[in-house]
């Protein structure tokens, strides 16, 4: 099928980034849909399942538009040999873009089938109806033919015109109704479900031994402790440049060999002292970009009745997937196949082809699920590790990263500094808002061999900085009506740690700053934070989520001393889902400990495809974002990451998670937008604002550790 898309491998032009993000979707119906002789429908999409249930949601869309039962639809996702290139599975766009492409294809197929049925049944199209994959004459139901009879096993040979009529939302009977996820029973009963579970005949297990930092070089290698194992052939040591791995028949033998190998790395100090991180970011050379501007912010700030300034800090954070990355690769007959959990199998296929010096059409990447990734974690790098070793050894290779490999090697969510200056007029209305953020790149997904750790290590080269900085400015502008605004991004071409996409990109840090600052302005204006926000918003959908969150979150109801509620609002990416959150905290002012009791979210993502799926996403966003806000910070020393396990990078545990209360606002006449990220961005500021409401302590640095709470309490004391 769209293995044809591999033609994209020939050039490295400027359209490449766009192509890898959005893909090169097909217009051939047969690339999207096939109906088997038994009536089963196979639908193809280059998006992948990341543990959010999209396999089920996409199947719902196909079943709905085609009028077949949901259990008759099988989705094939993310396979460079079989599916169209639909770009990365990222940015909460799977339902919006992947779903839209499938809806058009299914509508086109339904239309084609109606044409065929009209001929077959000798009846006009208008007289036909479809139910469960059977077309019949409305006035003569016995006069009927099934999809399978019409086209089963044959090709449509038709173009997706985008003009075939799609159903109106009012007629939906599959979309919008909770559907049990198709993947969960296998996961709950121990059937193979993840790339980690793939076992090929003759497969060997490998572990890669990494330098403390990507620029370190391998000076010497002491393998004396492995001599018996290498002599007997139980273990092989593979070295290419600074890429070092051990390979064994037995997995535990590989683990033990990796521990016993004694490499000497020459590492130069390249990281600033951890405590000076944010100063280092502010002092780095930057490329500056004004991303939003209207009015005259400089003049307005001079004329403001009152002026407020605050600086906020976001640390490096980890994806910290529950299962470290894993991949399996097999090189035979001059062709390489890699099974991995990459979020962008097409772009990674090209990067790996360059790395192992094969033409892209000789490399096939097949997505299999990994543990939840939430962005660009180690999945691409481990695939490259496996590819290099499979080509080197000519045997199927499974590479499983250790927990420390994952924490050290995965690209981090970038640290950022955010600075806001606001001016209020005499009526306590916001007159001016100047916002600046310092940010490393949020988008470093691999497109070339040197973007991969294995590429850097085998070639002993570090990549030149990217010109693509996108994503760090996500939600840097707010949706508040402010007559004089300027939003400036200061992009850092080099960052202390390797960074890339983490759920919501800059959206989390920017919304933390903006919504904390909004609260600080409301306090300065001595106005209720809900009232203050509503006064600066005109969009009725924004008002609706704020009022719904306030109502469900008991906004304004009295609380005991030491407890408080905080509010936050955002329209994700200023163009997607509307979300408002109320956090309820209890703060122990003598220890600084924060107990997050409840987070209430009101959420409007347009037409809802699967309400339970959306709820599950919101719960996950809130709990993960609360974990990031309260606990998470990647620590490092001069040469490497020191947060290498769950003790040095703790996350929220069962005893610490809040209740999550959700109010969904369904908008059947508005397009569906993503639900995979929006509720992440409002969580941290809602918590910070709740801490302020409870104690008067203003937390401007994530994570909100007890030490920082105590430090913030000291100057003001409890209210």
């Amino acid at each position, binding site marked *: 099928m769209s293995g044809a898309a591999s033609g994209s491998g020939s050039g490295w032009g400027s359209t490449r980034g766009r192509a890898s993000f959005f893909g090169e979707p097909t217009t051939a119906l047969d690339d999207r849909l096939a109906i088997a002789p038994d009536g089963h429908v196979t639908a193809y999409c280059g998006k992948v399942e990341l543990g959010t249930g999209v396999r089920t949601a996409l199947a719902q869309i196909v079943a709905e538009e085609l009028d077949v039962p949901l259990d008759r639809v099988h989705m094939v996702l993310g396979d460079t040999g079989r599916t169209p290139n639909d770009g990365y599975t990222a940015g909460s766009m799977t339902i919006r873009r992947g779903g839209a492409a499938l809806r058009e294809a299914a509508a086109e197929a339904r239309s084609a089938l109606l044409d065929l049925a009209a001929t077959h049944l000798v009846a006009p199209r208008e007289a036909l109806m479809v139910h469960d994959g059977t077309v019949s004459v409305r006035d003569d139901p016995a006069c009927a033919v099934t999809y399978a009879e019409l086209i089963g096993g044959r090709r449509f040979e038709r173009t997706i015109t985008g003009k075939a009529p799609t159903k109106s939302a009012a007629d939906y009977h599959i979309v919008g109704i909770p559907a049990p996820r198709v993947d969960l029973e296998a996961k*709950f009963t121990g059937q*193979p*479900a993840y790339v980690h579970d793939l076992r090929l005949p003759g497969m060997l297990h490998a572990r890669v031994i990494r330098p403390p930092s990507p620029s370190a070089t391998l000076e010497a290698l002491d393998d004396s402790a492995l001599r018996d194992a290498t002599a007997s052939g139980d273990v092989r040591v593979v070295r290419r440049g600074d890429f070092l791995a051990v390979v064994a028949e037995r997995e*535990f033998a590989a683990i033990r060999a990796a521990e016993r190998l004694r490499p000497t790395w020459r590492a130069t100090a390249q990281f600033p002292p951890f405590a000076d991180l944010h100063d280092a970011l502010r002092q780095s050379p930057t490329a500056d970009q004004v991303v939003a501007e209207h009015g005259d912010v400089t003049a307005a700030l001079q004329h403001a009745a009152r002026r407020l300034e605050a600086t906020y800090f976001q640390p490096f954070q980890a994806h910290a997937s529950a299962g470290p990355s894993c991949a399996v690769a097999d090189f035979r007959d001059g062709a390489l196949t890699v099974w991995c959990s990459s979020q962008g199998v097409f772009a990674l296929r090209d990067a790996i082809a360059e790395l192992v010096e094969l033409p892209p059409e000789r490399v096939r990447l097949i997505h299999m699920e990994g*543990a939840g990734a939430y962005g660009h974690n180690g999945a691409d790098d481990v695939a490259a590790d496996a590819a290099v070793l499979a080509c080197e050894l000519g045997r199927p290779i499974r590479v499983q990263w250790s927990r420390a490999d994952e924490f050290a090697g995965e690209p981090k969510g970038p640290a950022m500094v955010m600075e806001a200056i606001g001016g209020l007029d005499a009526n306590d209305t916001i007159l001016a808002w100047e916002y600046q953020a310092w940010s490393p790149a949020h988008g470093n997904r691999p497109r070339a061999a040197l973007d991969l750790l294995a590429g850097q290590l085998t070639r002993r080269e570090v990549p030149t900085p990217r010109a693509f900085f996108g994503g760090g400015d996500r939600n840097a502008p707010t949706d508040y009506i402010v007559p004089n605004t300027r939003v400036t991004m200061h992009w850092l071409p080099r960052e202390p740690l390797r960074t890339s996409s983490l759920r919501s990109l800059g959206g989390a840090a920017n919304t933390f700053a903006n919504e904390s600052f909004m609260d600080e302005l409301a306090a300065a204006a001595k106005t209720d934070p809900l009232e203050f926000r509503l006064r600066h918003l005109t969009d009725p959908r924004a008002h609706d989520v704020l009022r719904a969150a306030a109502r469900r979150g008991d906004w304004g109801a009295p609380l005991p001393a030491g407890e408080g509620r905080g509010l936050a609002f955002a329209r994700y990416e200023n163009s997607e889902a509307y979300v408002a959150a109320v956090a309820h905290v209890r703060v122990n002012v003598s220890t600084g400990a924060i107990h997050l009791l409840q987070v209430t979210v009101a959420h409007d993502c347009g037409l809802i495809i699967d309400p339970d799926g959306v709820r599950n996403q919101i719960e996950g*966003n809130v709990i993960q974002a609360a974990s990031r806000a309260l606990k998470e910070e990647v620590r490092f020393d001069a040469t490497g990451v020191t947060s290498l396990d769950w003790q040095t990078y703790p996350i929220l545990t*069962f005893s610490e998670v809040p209740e999550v209360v959700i109010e969904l606002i369904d908008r059947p006449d508005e397009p569906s937008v993503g639900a995979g990220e929006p509720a992440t961005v409002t969580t941290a500021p809602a918590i910070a604002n709740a801490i302020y409401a409870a104690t008067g302590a203003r937390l401007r640095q994530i994570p909100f550790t007890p030490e920082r709470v105590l430090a913030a309490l000291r100057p003001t004391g409890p209210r």
Partner: protein
Amino acid sequence: MERELTLVVNGERRTVRVAPDTPLLYVLRDDLGLNGPRFGCGLEQCGACMVLRGAEAVTSCRLPVSEVGTAAITTVEGLASDGELHPVQRAFLELQAAQCGYCSSGMLISAAALLWRKPHPTDDEIRAALDGNLCRCGSHTRIVRAVQRAAQLMWEVEA
């Protein structure tokens, strides 16, 4: 040196030839072909590799296989009986209590062990019992509800 060892896994005696210090996790996955116990950290910090030893939930990622003896080891593959899923499995399915599901088998094992010792746990007792099981997707609140539902289902079975 490899040694022949006999284990009792999911109700069957299984003989394997492995180095005796191999952690049980790798024997279950690589020698016996089971998928339920998962590698999460190898440090006994996250619970993804949990199995039942007798009726107790234990991590398997550092437990030398030679120390297991003939204790009955149960993985999620062995929770079902007579073709019927265990109440914790049914409840997790009913409440769709997962996102990526990578940590689920450890959660199911922990929950099964909890309900064995405490058939009617409070929410706080469930949270305490699951504190050794990390979930990164944030499915916690659903999982707690699913364990409560499993307790109900077990009661229905007994009644």
